[in-house]
Structures are given as C-alpha cells and as structure tokens.
C-alpha cells in the first residue's frame, strides 16, 4: 500500500505540512517495502484549484491513503470519489512519525 504524506521538505525525516494542496513536498511511502519517494509540489504558488490537481498527483503515484492536516472541499470531493482515504495528523512530528501513528491506528479519518 502507498501512503502519501504532505511534508515541508523531502524525505521521511521532514516535518509534516498541515496544508494539503499547497504542501511544499509530497512523500509517498510504500508500506510493504518501506521505500519512500519525495516529489516537490509544483502547485505551491498556483492561483487556485490546487486541491483537485493535488489529488490527481496522489492518484498517479498510486496512493490509497493520505496523511495531512486538513483538506478543502474540492480536494475532499475528489479524494472521496477516488476512494482515497485521508487521515488527520495535527502533530509537529516528522513524516516517519506520522506514518507510525497511522500504522498504530491513532489517526482520525478526515470527513470526505
């Protein structure tokens, strides 16, 4: 399973970013192999409509779970219709710590 996590920098040591579509980086972790891929988000400075476009990127990377602070209405609709689950991480920890919290079942699902 691929989990996509919004982050402030590349790598699993980077702090989690609370914003979804405007997060500077997306870190995709394959929970089977433990491999992580970080991509720089080209939408950081986009004028608008970043939610649906970010969801498309998550879908392209095969993510079925998203960990972020919160998502907007359009992103929620796209995630919901795409069957991608979203979980809220409101802490100040790293991508790896957020993923551990998710694996332990401690994160609340975001309403989609």
């Amino acid at each position, binding site marked *: 399973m691929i989990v996509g996590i919004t982050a402030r920098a590349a790598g699993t040591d980077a702090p989690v970013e609370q914003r979804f579509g405007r997060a500077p980086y997306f870190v995709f972790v394959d929970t089977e192999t433990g491999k992580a891929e970080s991509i720089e988000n080209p939408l950081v400075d986009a004028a608008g409509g970043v939610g649906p476009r970010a969801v498309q990127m998550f879908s392209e990377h095969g993510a079925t779970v998203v960990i972020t602070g919160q998502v907007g209405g359009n992103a929620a*609709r*796209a995630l919901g219709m*795409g069957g991608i689950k979203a979980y809220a991480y409101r802490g100040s920890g790293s991508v790896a710590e957020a993923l551990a919290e998710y694996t332990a079942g401690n994160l609340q699902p975001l309403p989609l």
Partner: protein
Amino acid sequence: MKIAIASGKGGTGKSTVAANLACTLALSREVALVDCDVEEPNLHLFFPDSAVDVPVTTPVPEIDPALCNFCGECGKFCRFGALSVLKDRVILFPELCHSCGGCSLVCPQGAIEEVPRTVGRVACSCPLPSLTLVSGVLNEGEVMAPAVIRAAKMLAEGHPLILYDASPGIACPVIETLEGVDACILVTESTPFGLHDLRLAAEVVEGIGIPAGVVINRSDGQDEETLEFCRERGLPVLMTIPFSREIAAVQNRGGLICRDLPGWEERFADLFEAVVKIVGVSP
C-alpha cells in the same frame, strides 16, 4: 460613444455617477446603461422596473466515458483544477472551469466535448422612455464574471451612447468592462484609500490607452493630494461632488440627485460635455 465609470476603490460612487449621468442624458437622447458590476449589480435600485432575463452560459468540459482512457493530460493541463483524473474516473469541478477549451484540445482521445453551463443572467429593462438598463448578474459562487460582463455589453451593443458601470478593483472584470470604450470616468473620494486606488486605476486606463478624467466624490474640500496627482498624470478633474448630508439623504432612499436636487442635472450634463472633450470627438 462608450463611456466606462471605474474607480479602483469600492464605494467611491461609481454607480451614483453612472445613474445620475444616465438619467440626465436620457432627457435628451437614447442611452444604454450597463451594470458591469456583476457580482453585486445595484443600478436597478435607482431604476426599478420589470426586466426580461437572458441566461448566460459558458462552455465546460464533458467527458465521453467510452473514449476516455484516464491518461490524465486534461487534468495536468488545467491550471484551475477543474478536472481531476483518477485511476478509473474523471471528476469535474465545473465551477472552477474558466472555459479556455484547453482540455478538449490536449485530449489525445478526443473524449472531451464542451457543453454550455449557466453561470448568470443579463436583465434588460426600459425604466425611462429613452433609457435602457442592462444588468449583468453572476450567480453566487461562480467565478466567470467576465463572461457575464461580455454578455451584458453585447446586449447593449448598437446603442449610440453606452455607459458601463464597472466593478471595483482593477482585475479581470474591470479589464473586460474597459475593453473597447472611448473614455473612462475614474471616481475617487477624499481619503488616502481613494487616492491609493485611483493611482492603480489610472495606471490601468493609461496602460490600455483610454482617455480618462476624474470625479472627486464626497469631497471635504481638502483634495490637494488628489488634485496634485491628477495634475501630474494629466488627468482632468471633471466634477467634484461635495460631502453633504443633503446628497447622502437622496442617495440613501434610492433617489437621484440630478432629479431631486437643484443644479445637479446641469452639472451632470456638463460632466458629459467634459468627457466628450477628453475623447476629442463629437458624441
């Protein structure tokens, strides 16, 4: 002749000037008054009358599921996020679409067709024998103000004299309103905010190359800074409306000062003559 009334800052009195100018001119000729402030049109408050509505539509994408292979090109192309391509479906956000048509051009499958979607309406009425009022109304939550403005302007096309009441600001709706006009009246007020935004609006009309003049509204008589700015930029001051309780009272009950207060019909007639002069042609 086409005259736009713009301001930069909101609430300076664009609609007041537009309504009074239109009412004055309608005494002697045919006038079309177009409310281009489509997010909050209000000229109909000065001219209550029954109106005929014409819907305004913009083209939005429709996906043919038989042809789409979810390649994602349309979603990558759309900078407004109006399409989100997932593994087995395309999700449309028509309210985010700016109707550029790019998605249907980049689709390698030819799976995208454009279909009309209603985003607003244009209300047409004849509140005075020689006055046609054309009001653009953008539906709530929509972003395509320029499409409604374009439609409203098109419905007024053909009138010999058209006044366009612009929205505040200097963004797309104002640029759309200014397209093709012969002159622009910039309405400002005696405040630092009024002057700040007058500067922006003056830059816009100068950039487009539209002859312009200034109306100072709610003047407290201390307009040195505004006058200095107008001198610097070569903008004639066409009219000054004082900050007065009497004027405010007429305005607040939806009245027109050109009709209800002595002397103002003549002043608005003079304003028109002054605008004609800056255009440099006969109306």
